[in-house]
């Protein structure tokens, strides 16, 4: 092949130039983290670090990074650095860079220079076209470093010269008086530029070509995964941080300090007093709590699961094992998918209009359970069906060849093999319904801040009566509260401000934290169950 470059089979130890590229990736990563921290106000951009203003520091780092990457690219082009570039950086990179530079050019022309539509349009097209040409036409080492590096240098220069400083505001001039301020703009620009430069630096580190692209893509994929984990972690950490003071308010340990509980006629006192989860809201409480809502949420989920899982798994068994595959199963599939996509408020309205009048004509725990059960049902059907379809037909054949009937095969082979998948579906569904507010609002919500005496006691509520159906449970037909509903009304309606809750802000965050813990607790139970069944199926 003419012109094909042969690269070395074994690359030597890290060269100095590679170390420079690796350092650039590292600095870019630090800059990215720093800008994220600034975005979430963990770092203030008005601060000074060692006498240098934060914004200037960010700008200087950006310039340094940009120059480093551009230098690497140019050095590679001039032959000072041994790399293995392709003839062009490729169309995707070219389109991406031209888009970015189009926006940059347009913003500078219209906002900073104050040109009109024609003026900024022209400038934007010129810069975008230039970026496209610079990316697509020269060799890959120039094409993938120059546009990224120059952008970083440009952004850095804007920060260092104070064109965008801590006091900068871009008023959009809309009726709603929306504006971008420096606290948002500077971190976002920094994060974006450092991301671009780190991609260019990673490609340089890989020596461009196939290996360079691999390293560049690897970096982007990793950053993506890290930012997802970071967002999750941040969300949980934020809630925990805000919720902990309220949650552990006047908690105490010791024999007999807790409330008394009677189980099977035997009364004992808890060795732990935890007012927030053991109290309701009442005038005379020292510390108010959310016990009724916790109990309501747990009973809701249990009721919905008890209602939906047998029905859903049964339907899935019928569809996969008994029904002829054809029009009917297709219709059922479309119907379940549609049901799963139905907004929860519609389920709530159905519950209000259909279930509530039939269940004692008042909002009740049972109506809430059934409504959420209806919501859970389609997901259980879908995932159970998938799980059963994934059970190999060889198992069914082997069982049939042993003379075992279809139902026995389903019960002892298909269902156990499908169980981990079914449990996964239930976990996902419970995660959705446990935090659902709208249906509860319409079907079961009672008082916003119920006192501890209104905690539902479903087990204790069963009573035998002398007339059919011989058993009744008034607890099930009572309106009660649930955590998401309580949180919703505490935040939006301002309800409870006037009641005896002392520190409403703390109370809200603690409620949110408890809701998170309860939902994650259900998750943990589900995952443990799935792990148990999966272990049974595998040969470990």
């Amino acid at each position: 092949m003419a012109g094909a470059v042969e690269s070395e089979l074994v690359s030597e130890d890290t060269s100095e130039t590679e170390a420079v590229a690796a350092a650039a990736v590292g600095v870019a990563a630090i800059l990215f983290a720093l800008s994220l921290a600034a975005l979430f106000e963990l770092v203030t951009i008005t601060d000074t670090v060692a006498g240098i203003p934060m914004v200037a520091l960010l700008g200087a780092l950006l310039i340094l990074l940009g120059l480093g990457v551009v230098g690497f690219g140019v050095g590679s082009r001039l032959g000072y650095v041994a790399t293995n570039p392709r003839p062009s950086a490729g169309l995707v990179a070219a389109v991406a860079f031209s888009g970015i530079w189009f926006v940059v050019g347009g913003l500078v022309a219209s906002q900073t220079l104050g040109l009109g539509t024609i003026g900024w349009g022209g400038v934007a097209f010129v810069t975008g076209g230039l970026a496209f040409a610079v990316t697509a036409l020269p060799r890959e080492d120039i094409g993938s470093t120059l546009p990224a590096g120059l952008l970083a240098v440009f952004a850095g220069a804007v920060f260092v010269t104070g064109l965008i400083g801590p006091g900068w505001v871009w008023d959009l001039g809309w009726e709603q008086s929306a504006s971008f301020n420096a606290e948002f703009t500077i971190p976002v620009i920094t994060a974006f530029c450092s991301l671009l430069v780190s991609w260019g630096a990673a490609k340089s580190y890989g020596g461009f070509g196939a290996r360079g692209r691999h390293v560049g893509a690897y970096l982007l994929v990793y950053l993506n995964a890290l930012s997802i984990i970071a967002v999750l972690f941040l969300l949980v950490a934020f809630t925990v941080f805000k919720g902990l003071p309220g949650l552990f308010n006047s908690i105490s340990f010791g024999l007999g300090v807790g409330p008394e509980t009677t189980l099977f006629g035997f009364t004992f006192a808890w060795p732990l007093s935890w007012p927030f989860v053991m109290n309701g809201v009442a005038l005379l409480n020292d510390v108010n709590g959310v016990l009724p809502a916790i109990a309501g949420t747990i009973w809701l989920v249990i009721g919905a699961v008890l209602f939906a899982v047998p029905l859903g798994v049964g339907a899935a068994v019928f569809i996969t094992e008994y029904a002829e595959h054809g029009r009917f199963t297709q219709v059922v599939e479309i119907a379940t998918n549609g049901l799963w996509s139905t907004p929860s408020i519609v389920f709530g309205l159905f519950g209000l209009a259909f279930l509530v009048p039939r269940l004692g004509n008042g909002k009740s725990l049972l109506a809430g359970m059934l409504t959420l059960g209806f919501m859970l049902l389609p997901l259980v059907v879908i995932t159970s069906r998938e799980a059963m379809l994934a059970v190999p037909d060889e198992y069914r054949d082997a069982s049939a060849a042993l003379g075992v009937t279809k139902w026995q095969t389903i019960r002892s082979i298909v269902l156990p093999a499908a169980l981990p998948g079914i449990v996964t579906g239930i976990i996902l569904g419970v995660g959705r319904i446990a935090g659902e507010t709208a249906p509860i609002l319409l079907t079961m919500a009672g008082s916003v801040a119920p006192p501890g005496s209104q905690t539902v006691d479903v087990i204790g509520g069963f009573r035998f009566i002398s007339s059919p159906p011989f058993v009744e449970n008034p607890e099930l037909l009572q309106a009660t509260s649930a955590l998401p509903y309580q949180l919703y009304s505490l935040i939006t309606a301002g309800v409870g401000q006037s009641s005896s809750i002392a520190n409403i802000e703390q109370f809200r965050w603690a409620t949110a934290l408890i809701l998170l813990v309860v939902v994650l607790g259900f998750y943990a139970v589900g995952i443990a169950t799935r792990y148990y069944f999966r272990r049974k199926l595998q040969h470990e």
Partner: protein
Amino acid sequence: MTETTQSTDTDQAAESAQTSDIEMQGSGQPLEVTAGETREKTRDEWTDYEFEGDAKFAVEDLDVYYGDDHALKGVSMDIPENSVTALIGPSGCGKSTFLRCLNRMNDRIKAASVDGTVELDGEGIYQDGINLVELRKRVGMVFQSPNPFPKSIRDNISYGPRKHGDLETGFLANLLGRSDDEEVEELVERSLTQAALWDEVKDRLDDNALGLSGGQQQRLCIARALATEPDVLLMDEPASALDPIATSKIEDLVHELSEHYTVVIVTHNMQQAARISDQTAVFLTGGELVEYGDTEQVFEDPESQRVEDYISGKFG
């Protein structure tokens, strides 16, 4: 090859000219050649096989259709009991289809329809009122790829008898004192010993069967089929996914089993058929049973030219 394809277009002149040199070789009838396979008309006497003792299966004019596809054409054969019968032939010739007709596993394929009679010990298995559970208890089956259940080795073996209600285990049986745990242990040991697997797994009967090697899994499947105490064992290429050592173990096993069981085995491997079987049935393209007889005779001196071509490796 162009000449030969012309001859299939029923061009009489070309046919006689072109087939003259291979005429009279085997069966003494005019022959034509298509794609390496000799064309000839199958004669009934090639599939007549006289044997002493009773026939376990008597198959008469068996036709199988998959939709419009005529997969088996008028197959008739008697299978003697306590012997090994090998079914050989190229891919798609219907040998597996024939095997699956013997325990009505073809019922599980919706498009399949079966015509003709199959008698097990003189009773037609395609008549109304047949008890499929009882049929499949008597006629066990081992599949091409090992398919143990994702359960413990013990549970795999005892699965059939437990589901048939012959053995009772579990919590309630324990509580009522009806538990057959000892019988289960005996059954597991007996079946695994018969399948030559006992020594390898006796210390880990509670381990998951999927942890066994491929050859062990296949022997476990044989043991599982034997646990229901069948009269007949159908095997659909049981060694095709196994290495030579595991294959030879399975072959030895088949040989031993033939003392007490009627074994019908489908195989792709002609040497294997020659080694282990007492009689061999050759199915060829188109779903026809072409020749059936004593293994030695079929392999040494086949009556059909097509069978000879197939056995000597000219096609298939």
